[in-house]
């Protein structure tokens, strides 16, 4: 009898823990909404989403999030343009061409890159990369959108490589053998059979790479120069949504419009990352069928 009760209790506890993740996601959403929507009691939503000026502590304050969204977009787009071709190419090399110890060494190198904390990358970006950029393009400052894109590309590449590798590995052996048996070279087999067959997985990899980049905070805050203006070129300082939250939350008075506005940016970020993950999940699901 006692035994049965104990068993029941343990099973219920485990099931309750299983629900914990759902509760946390709901809580995150609720808290962002609770604090973020409070902004719209005083600031119209159109001023927030459509405003092109972010002057949170001037009088009167302006909470236009457009420069920050565009800042995030420019930096992210740059990083993805840099990272995607290189990542797909090296995933092909590692999974199809490299063998033996070379394969292990390259994989380890890429895993190491993924493990480096973002604040360390940001620090090196400031100390080493920014002076190079400044010198190379003869700029007043090396802290630009491009600097951010390069650092973020380094952070996105391990994600994209490893998921692309998985997608390539999931292509049935028969596809490769059939192409080679028809007289295709290995490169023709890779470019015309393997890559198209792995397409959904590669798209998922790119989505998750974008997700990683757009949510990245510390490195991007340290190397992009933090100027909240609408970006006109990749060689000027920009400010992203993540950097704005991280940089200003320390000074924002709890319960002020500024504080609520930073949570409202959090809602925008949460929504974007939710959509990207859902899209990636959809692509991965498509691949399985």
């Amino acid at each position, binding site marked *: 009898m006692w035994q049965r009760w104990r068993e029941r209790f343990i099973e219920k506890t485990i099931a309750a823990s299983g629900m914990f993740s759902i509760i946390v*996601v709901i809580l995150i959403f609720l808290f962002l909404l609770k604090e973020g929507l409070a902004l719209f009691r005083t600031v119209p939503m159109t001023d927030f989403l459509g405003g092109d000026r972010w002057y949170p502590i001037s009088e009167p304050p302006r909470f236009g999030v457009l420069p920050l969204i565009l800042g995030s977009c420019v930096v992210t787009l740059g990083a993805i343009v840099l990272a995607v071709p290189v990542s797909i190419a090296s995933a092909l090399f590692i999974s199809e061409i490299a063998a033996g110890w070379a394969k292990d060494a390259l994989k380890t190198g890429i895993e190491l890159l993924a493990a480096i904390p973002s604040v360390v990358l940001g620090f090196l970006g400031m100390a080493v990369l920014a002076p190079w950029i400044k010198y190379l393009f003869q700029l007043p400052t090396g802290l630009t959108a491009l600097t951010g894109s390069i650092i973020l590309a380094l952070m996105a590449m391990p994600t994209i490589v490893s998921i692309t590798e998985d997608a390539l590995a999931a292509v049935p052996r028969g596809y490769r053998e059939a192409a080679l048996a028809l007289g295709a070279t290995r490169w023709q087999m890779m470019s015309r059979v393997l890559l198209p067959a792995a397409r959904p997985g590669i798209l998922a990899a790119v989505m998750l790479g974008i997700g990683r980049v757009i949510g990245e905070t510390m490195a991007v805050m340290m190397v992009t120069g933090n100027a909240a203006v609408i970006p006109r070129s990749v060689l000027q300082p920009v400010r992203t949504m993540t950097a704005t939250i991280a940089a200003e939350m320390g000074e924002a008075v709890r319960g002020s419009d500024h504080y609520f506005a930073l949570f409202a940016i959090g809602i925008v970020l949460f929504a974007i990352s939710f959509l990207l993950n859902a899209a990636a999940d959809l692509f991965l699901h498509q691949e399985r069928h």
Partner: protein
Amino acid sequence: MARPAWQRALGVQRVAFVLLFLSTLLIVIPAVAIIGTITVRGMGAVSWEFLTTMPTKGMRAGGIFPAIVGTLELVSLTVVFALPIGIATAIYLTEYATDNWLTRLVRLAIVNLSGVPSVVYGLFGLGLFVMFLGFGTSLLAGALTLAIMILPVIITASEEALRSVPKSFREISLSLGASHWQTVRHAVLPFAIPGIMTGTILGIGRAAGETAPILFTVAAFYLPRLPDSIFDQAMALPYHLYVISTQIPNIPASQRYGTAFVLLVLVLSLNLAAVILRARFRRRRQW
């Protein structure tokens, strides 16, 4: 004389393979260069004194002892919170859940959690733990925030470890009259421990290196003493590196490189431990 098509195709292949190889180098070389630079320039700055003394002169001199202790306390507390729930969730998903809408919802939530930007976790921690529950800026609030962040890492690794235990283990245990929970507890869980540990160590590495979630939940700008309790603020290595690289002018470069080196060694050795553990486990596995 025109070359035959097959020869041309082989020529194209040679060029393509070289390009693929160069692309791979474009990822691996920066990784090695970054770690090399930090190691070469940081190792010189690290001494016994640097590791064990308080910062002085507005953090321009002295050591990083409180930041190291703060990070160690923070990640220990994080694991205490994350591990039980992570393992329980994995057990639920592999051993108990049936394939229904609720299970799919749990999976969707986990995928979603793993994609939430780290600074959003920071906002959430601030809203729930610091303000709503009134923990204040404290080790407790930061550890809870980090625990939620690394939960997906632990769940995914534990699930994989539990699934890799053969079905026959469970069948034999059940056929001997063991209950469902006894089977999980004695015939499944012990064999999944190495895999769960690998995931946990990876999670610790992630928690130790993250800055954004602890910015508004734990981190003290400058606190030249150790925290008294879990309700106290603390310094932490990643936040300390951020502060001395951006907020404090005229600081010797060696202080920054030294701090970056200590953080990098901590995080990379955790990752290395996880890799070695995984490799040894795979080699020794008998089934």
